[in-house]
């Protein structure tokens, strides 16, 4: 099997490794371990077995008949919400935990925003008996209290991060610092397709099960690939995994970032829509930054999308034009959240609701367009927040 990682760690101009020297040997080790494992049938089988028997894959594709009738589109959803722990995050957490064990690392650290990646990581650590420390911004600990409890219940330690903006970006900073300090016995499971090489490509490979399954399922049901594929983009892991199944097709692919209060207000988390390339968290990619290169604060109702950077491969796909990127505002996402619940019996995570929000924009697609949306996670974690925002 050929190497799946670009050896330079670059996607066009994007990606690379901008890290303290201390981490380089660990990144090299991770890259080598991943390359060997991913090319090994035994590892693939082990990964697939856990995905099937523990995570509950394959997740189905569900046709959304009522919203199809309402909009005139032919809408289906890839049901990553049905994964164990409620989101796609566990595909990657599982893969990386298996690698950590191959490297003989007994301690796992992770960052989390919405708490979904933290819960997924805590879950696989409990499964394998690994020690688990999760960094989470203080602000997010408040927004996602239930997930903090879940992680603790799973035996993980949750470390609130009070520096900077107290959200996902700062949790990532703290996790990086921990890794720099404890790199010899610790593996850092980054929760998204961002970070230094080899993370973006490795996380994509672990998440590509989404797109591979979705394409085959859709073909089987509809006899063709979808005209349009839509996914929300935080750091970009669910989107890249989903898009990867369709890059070779004619399918029009659209990534939806967090528009917060609206791109024009500056209060958003949409680096691809309104940022510029720069270096954050070890990688050269689109970034929300000021004219001095300082990273700007972000704003989104969804903790999992509230991140100023994005995975390098998305920057590449944006610049090549293969994938289009747009943003949905908090209001649009909340409207879609309710719409999907009432009309399909599907309660999406706030993150995933951003992807569905495009369907409510009048005339965005021609009637009859076949659309497949990646429903990256379920909304259980957002119930408390939703009950505060929506009056029913």
């Amino acid at each position, binding site marked *: 099997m050929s190497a799946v990682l670009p050896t330079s760690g670059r996607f066009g101009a994007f990606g*690379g*490794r*901008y*890290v*303290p*020297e*201390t*981490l*380089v*040997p*660990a990144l090299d080790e991770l890259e080598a371990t991943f390359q060997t494992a991913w090319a090994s049938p035994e590892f693939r089988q082990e990964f697939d077995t856990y995905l099937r028997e523990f995570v509950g894959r394959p997740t189905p594709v569900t046709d959304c008949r009522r919203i199809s009738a309402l909009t005139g589109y032919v809408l289906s959803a890839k049901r990553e919400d049905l994964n164990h722990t409620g989101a796609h995050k566990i595909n990657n957490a599982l893969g990386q935990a298996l690698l950590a064990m191959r490297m003989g690392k007994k301690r796992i650290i992770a960052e989390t925003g919405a708490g979904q990646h933290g819960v997924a990581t805590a879950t696989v650590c409990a499964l394998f008996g690994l020690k688990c420390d999760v960094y989470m911004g203080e602000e997010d600990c408040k927004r996602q209290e239930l997930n903090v409890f879940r992680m603790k219940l799973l035996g993980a330690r949750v470390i609130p991060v009070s*520096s*900077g903006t107290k959200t996902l*970006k*700062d949790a990532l*900073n703290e996790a*990086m*610092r921990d890794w*720099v*300090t*404890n*790199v*010899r016995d610790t593996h850092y499971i980054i929760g998204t397709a961002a970070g230094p090489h080899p993370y973006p490509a490795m996380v994509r490979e672990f998440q590509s099960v989404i797109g591979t399954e979705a394409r085959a399922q859709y073909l089987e049901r509809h006899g063709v690939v979808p005209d349009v594929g839509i996914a929300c983009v935080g750091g970009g892991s669910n989107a890249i995994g989903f898009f990867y199944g369709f890059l070779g097709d004619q399918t029009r692919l659209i990534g939806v970032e967090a528009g917060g209060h609206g791109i024009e207000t500056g209060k958003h988390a949409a680096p691809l829509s309104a940022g510029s390339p*720069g*270096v*954050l*968290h*070890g990688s050269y990619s689109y*970034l929300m*930054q000021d*004219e*001095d*290169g*300082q*990273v700007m604060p972000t704003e989104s109702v969804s903790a999992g999308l509230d991140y100023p950077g994005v995975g390098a491969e998305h920057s590449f796909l944006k610049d090549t034009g293969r994938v289009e990127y747009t943003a949905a505002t908090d209001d649009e996402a909340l409207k879609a959240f309710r719409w999907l619940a009432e009309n399909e019996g599907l309660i999406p995570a706030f993150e995933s609701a951003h992807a569905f929000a495009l369907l409510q924009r009048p005339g965005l697609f021609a009637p009859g367009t076949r659309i497949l949306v990646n429903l990256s996670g379920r909304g259980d974690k957002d119930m408390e927040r939703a009950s505060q925002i929506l009056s029913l």
Partner: protein
Amino acid sequence: MPTLADTFAALKAKGEKALVLYVTAGDPSLDQLPAILEALVEGGADVIEVGVPFSDPIADGPTIQASSQRALDRGTRPGDVLEAVTKAQPSVPVVLMGYYNTMLRPGLSSFAQRAKAAGVGGVIVCDIILEEADDWVKVSQAAGIDSVFLAAPTSTPERLRAVATNSTGFVYAVSRTGVTGAAQQAGDEVARLVGDLKGMTDTPVCVGFGISKPEHVAAVCQVADGAVIGSWLVDWLAQNWREGQGRADLVAAVKALKAATLA
């Protein structure tokens, strides 16, 4: 300002080791920087690292993180830092220390030329490794600025050799696997690291991260060409420097550190 090469050559001729001190530009406020640098030089600093504050300093521990944040909250901008260095013109080399994005944003060439014009002798980029440094090395060489690279206890022999041979001005040996921050003890891995590096290059080797006391400085200077102190000084300034008040104490403390390099 003298070059790093001249400074280390002069120290060597005298049989001395370098006291390298780090301050975050903008903490205390930037208008204090010239006075602070003057006091450090009077106390015996041989090289001064001026930190350019960045919003996401992943290689820094709590002290320098907090200091960078205070500097940013005061509105400290990279251009203003260079202006303050221009104004200060200390009699020892100034090395900028910071993160790649603040250099990339204005453009590497423009950054290097402005730094050179301000009298800066070298630059340390905390989040750049040799593999990613081609552009910066070209630009800094063209501008006549030294590029100081870091060597870590985890670096493989091949990497150490690459760092040793590509670093100019001095080589920055990181004393421990970890981020910046004052420690109770200097790392024990450092003697081997410095020994390895010195076997690979004639460029001076200075040790930093976790050094805060005269004893650490003395221990490090047994093996290395200099010791870098950051977090301790950053803390001291935040607590004691009030518009020049505390200057005499600062000079005395720096003198004690310089004395330790000679011990």
